[in-house]
């Protein structure tokens, strides 16, 4: 039996593992990517959210697969099948509440992860594709979450499906034909529900695939870090295991506590009570709101109340709403500064905190009926969102004077711990 020499990554294992690893280098892969994988030694807790998002994705898929065993994707039966899950299926309430609140947790974590990237310039050379793949994941998540929200076939499900699919009617000339195609009929109906169920089951696995690409791109150049400077060698890095496995585990425990609080004590906190009324194509609820994680896009959509340059308000609202995400694809080139971390960019540091405030304001606007000053606030916040990316980002890179960068991660870490002046011999 040919067993590879002791120098292979699996050399610490028994003969069987080494025999397998020589042919299928799975142990070597794990060793290389999750054990020895060098990470900057100055990563802070903002760097927990990537692995957290991955774990939530797994939780969503596992609960979703089991829920699909009990769910019936038929417009006459869907609502009752969800109620059956809640009342009759053993632990069905738990599985559904995990899945429901898991969507909120997933978006919360991913939005923090995204903000981390913006703040520390993680999208800059050579991580542009890593960032773009992340935005692709966000788009897939939005599509998946929206279609999942339709499946219980409550009032909010039905009217969310109606409103969102009608966005496509803003497309000139062929808009209405596209909407009919999406529906498979002349309103949202059983064919719509069936295809949404099919896609809601498919897309998470597409997300898994793109997450795989995201990780390949990440591991090519390694994680960015709070200083935003490149690692220069082993003195700047730590192996992923045990340092980050344990730190990520701790972060996971905290996140699961928050998750469990909502699942067990406030399971409908993020939900709309209207969605416990069966879908009725004849009556629209008085106040339609999407789930919280889509409120900012919804606010932008509604903020365009007037035609501009002959473009109808309806089309422009759709374009700006979708554009708010498309804009993220361009961020690596919109930001003209060569300094990654906002720590060394005094103006951008301030501005980067204004963005989440602006997005939260948009979220508030999206949650309110579009009347009075709320409309104005939405228009101002929409304008600022675009102003941030299209004007501030390119401009600050030109006019801002960044603070001096540390020589290396190692020296910066040692200075922070008061050991910076110690001679090498004394560092032990």
């Amino acid at each position, binding site marked *: 039996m040919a067993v590879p020499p002791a120098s292979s990554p699996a050399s610490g294992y028994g003969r069987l593992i080494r025999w397998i690893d020589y042919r299928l280098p799975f142990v070597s892969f794990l060793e290389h990517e999750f054990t020895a994988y060098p990470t900057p030694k100055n990563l802070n807790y903002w760097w927990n959210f990537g692995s957290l998002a991955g774990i939530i994705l797994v939780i969503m898929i596992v609960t979703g697969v*089991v829920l699909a*065993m*009990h769910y019936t994707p038929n417009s006459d039966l869907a609502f009752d099948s969800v109620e059956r899950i809640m009342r*009759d299926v*053993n*632990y069905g309430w*738990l*599985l559904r509440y995990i899945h429901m609140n898991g969507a909120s947790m997933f978006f919360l974590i991913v939005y923090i992860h995204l903000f981390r990237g913006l703040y520390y310039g993680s999208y800059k050379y050579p991580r542009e594709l890593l960032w773009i793949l992340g935005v692709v994941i966000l788009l897939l998540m939005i599509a998946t979450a929206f279609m999942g929200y339709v499946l219980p076939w409550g009032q909010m499900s039905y009217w969310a499906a109606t409103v969102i699919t009608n966005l496509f009617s803003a497309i000139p000339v062929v808009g209405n034909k596209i909407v009919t195609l999406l529906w498979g009929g002349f309103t949202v109906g059983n064919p719509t529900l069936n295809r949404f169920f099919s896609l809601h089951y498919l897309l998470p696995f597409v997300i898994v695939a793109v997450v795989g690409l995201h990780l390949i791109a990440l591991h090519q150049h390694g994680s960015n870090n709070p200083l935003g400077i490149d690692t220069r060698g082993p003195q700047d890095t730590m192996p992923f295991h045990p340092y980050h496995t344990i730190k990520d585990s701790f972060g996971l425990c905290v996140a699961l506590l928050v998750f469990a609080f909502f699942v067990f004590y406030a399971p409908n906190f993020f939900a709309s009570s209207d969605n416990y009324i069966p879908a009725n194509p004849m009556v629209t609820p008085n106040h339609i709101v999407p789930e919280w994680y889509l409120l900012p896009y919804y606010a932008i959509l509604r903020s365009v109340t007037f035609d501009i340059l002959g473009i109808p308000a309806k089309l422009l609202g759709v374009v700006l709403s979708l554009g708010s995400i498309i804009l993220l694809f361009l961020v690596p080139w919109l930001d003209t500064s060569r300094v990654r971390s906002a720590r060394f960019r005094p103006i951008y540091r301030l501005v980067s905190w204004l963005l989440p405030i602006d997005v939260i304001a948009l979220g508030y606007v999206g949650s309110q009926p579009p009347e009075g000053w709320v409309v104005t606030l939405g228009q101002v916040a929409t304008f600022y969102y675009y102003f941030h990316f299209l004007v501030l980002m390119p401009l600050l890179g030109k006019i801002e004077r960044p603070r001096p960068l540390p020589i290396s991660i190692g020296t910066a870490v040692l200075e922070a711990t008061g050991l910076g002046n110690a001679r090498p011999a004394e560092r032990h």
Partner: protein
Amino acid sequence: MADLAHSQVTAGHDGGTRRDFLILTAGALGGIGAACAIWPFIDSLNPAKDTLALSTTEVDLAPVQAGQRLTVAWRGKPVFIDHRTPEEIKAAQDVDVASLRDPQPDSARAKKPEWLVIIGVCTHLGCIPLGNKPGDDRGPFGGWFCPCHGSIYDTSGRIRQGPAPLNLVVPPYDFTSDTAIKIG
């Protein structure tokens, strides 16, 4: 950093280190937690409450004449109800019980001799035996005959020939009156 970790690892006394202890306890707790978390997923695949609620069936026996056989559904399975004739009862009771593959006297299988209630699922591989409809092949013992693999049952639903290992199962049932039963 690495040196610090190294000094902790070697600082243990009788072979076990602080790190060994932490890994063991944290791993054990995590393992128990994961096992507990898996249970709801597995249990959700068991019959749900509405499925269990369908598990009794009431049958009115009054219209069933002697010699007639009736099929009812219980938990999605066919239950054979046979209003046996005196000859059929006699045939069932006159068998040498010790000679049977699955020895059971007829008195242990029928609460009232004229009414035989059995689950109509062959104990070999789950087919439904013939014999409950008029004109069916009842086999040489006048009971039931399974067309899938040739198992032959007598008028008490006991296995007499063929590959099946056991008699047709008697479901739990009670007479709620002289002419009505509740199965399950």
